[in-house]
């Protein structure tokens, strides 16, 4: 393939997009809408998965919060009772002062905000290390019998719920995306069909003069890819700015804690940019190829 032919082909592809503005716009809008929805789903799923993953680090632990104002001997007695439970490897006492210090450290730059609290709202707790995750249920059952325990924080459940939510959203989202992609391809097929009809005469002449199949098809495929790519870039812009504002809103409206669990704006951008570009170009090319197979007998 020579440079000149390549230029002709690419030119043809772009020219058609412009000549065929109304349908091109519909195609681009459809690609954009589909990918924006995909973006929303990705944002939800990735963030929830991220939370689950962070929580999973503490998977093999159970934290029990003790009632306030418990005398020290009661606290150590509770510790012994916990140690006696089957499946408990070890326990670690975390006083409310230690807990606050940990939280200050975890908040990092914003940690100093916590130093001005009038009274420490955090409870004393035991962190329980388990022999295995499987034993978690049994241990929790035994813990519930012990007096003086206010609350049991059992991460496995949280993790499970998060993972279930994420996979639910992912499944619903997948079905939705597939439906949207089918609609998008349908619109692109029709856009290319219009180009095909507009260029019917030209294509007939091309065939008579001995143009190879790829020479006739390529401009149409390029047209589809261009439509897909424009749609993809628009959706990347929309999703990126949308997430940027959402992220900042979470940061300012709620506690900084959220930012630990959320995927950063940059990482989100890098994830969707390549993915959307590929999907956009792919959907565009697929639409063209289907249109060509259906309406162009070269």
């Amino acid at each position: 393939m020579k440079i000149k032919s390549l230029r002709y082909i690419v030119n043809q592809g772009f020219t058609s997009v412009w000549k065929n503005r109304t349908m091109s716009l519909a195609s681009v809008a459809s690609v954009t809408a589909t990918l924006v929805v995909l973006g929303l789903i990705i944002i939800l799923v990735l963030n929830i998965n991220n939370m689950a993953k962070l929580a999973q680090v503490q998977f093999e632990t159970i934290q029990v919060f003790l009632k306030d104002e418990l005398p020290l001997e009661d606290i150590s007695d509770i510790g012994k009772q916990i140690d006696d439970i089957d499946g408990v490897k070890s326990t670690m006492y975390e006083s409310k002062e230690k807990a606050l210090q940990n939280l200050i450290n975890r908040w990092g730059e914003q940690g100093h905000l916590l130093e001005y609290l009038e009274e420490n709202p955090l409870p004393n707790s035991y962190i329980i290390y388990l022999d295995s995750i499987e034993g978690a249920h049994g241990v929790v059952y035994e813990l519930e019998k012990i007096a003086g325990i206010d609350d049991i924080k059992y991460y496995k459940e949280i993790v499970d719920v998060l993972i279930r939510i994420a996979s639910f959203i992912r499944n619903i989202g997948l079905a939705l995306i597939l439906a949207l992609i089918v609609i998008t391809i349908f619109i692109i097929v029709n856009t290319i069909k219009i180009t095909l009809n507009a260029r019917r005469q030209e294509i007939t002449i091309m065939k008579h003069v001995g143009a190879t199949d790829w020479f006739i098809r390529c401009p149409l495929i390029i047209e589809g890819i261009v439509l897909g790519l424009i749609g993809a870039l628009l959706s990347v812009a929309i999703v990126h700015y949308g997430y940027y504002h959402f992220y900042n809103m979470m940061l300012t409206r709620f506690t900084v804690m959220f930012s630990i669990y959320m995927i950063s704006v940059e990482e989100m951008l890098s994830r969707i940019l390549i993915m959307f570009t590929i999907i956009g170009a792919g959907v565009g090319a697929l639409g063209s190829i289907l249109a060509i197979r259906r309406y162009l007998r070269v």
Partner: protein
Amino acid sequence: MIEMQNVCKTYKKEVRALFNIDIKIEKGEFVFLVGPSGAGKTTFSKLVLKEENPDSGKIYFGGEDVTRLPRRKIPYLRRDIGVVFQDFRLLPNKNVYENIAFAMNIVEASAKEIRRRVPMVLAMVGLSSRAGNLPHELSGGEKQRVSIARAIVNNPSLLIADEPTGNLDPETAWEIMKVLRQVNRRGTTVLMSTHAKDIVDIMQKRVIALENGKIARDEIKGAYGYED
């Protein structure tokens, strides 16, 4: 150049377009294809171009069996055959020069080659001064000359003209015939379907007459043979 052996072609079972055609056309010949409407003239051309495939029989072009040509090689067969139609088939938004250059772009000719060949064929059909005009600014005869220029710009060994003078008045038709004769003199085989009695009678070339899909006549210096 072209050889058909026992070629049959039916459209949709019922319509028998060509039946048991045996014919040989040599390189450099000028052949008229005549016969009543629906006799199979256009079908004949389409078989040579592999736009249609025969039901049975063999078709050779330049020694190669066209019937067994794989799909991807069809473009290369067509590059060696120029085609001219009754309705010119020029691209309305391209000027004369571009219409001709288009045919060269498609076969990926170099820019240099295009700059050399296009003015040459324009001169040959006598349209050098009209290079910048759009088709709608041309007369019918001029349009047909552009379409001939386009058909020969890639130097094909065969030129198929399907009723090239069908839309033209007699005088203009003769201009076209002169161009075709000149193309033929330069060594290109010409196969022309026509209903123009005068032209066939005066040109004194080989005449193949088709009737109901069969060869009714094949004369060396033939006449049209039908009343208008």
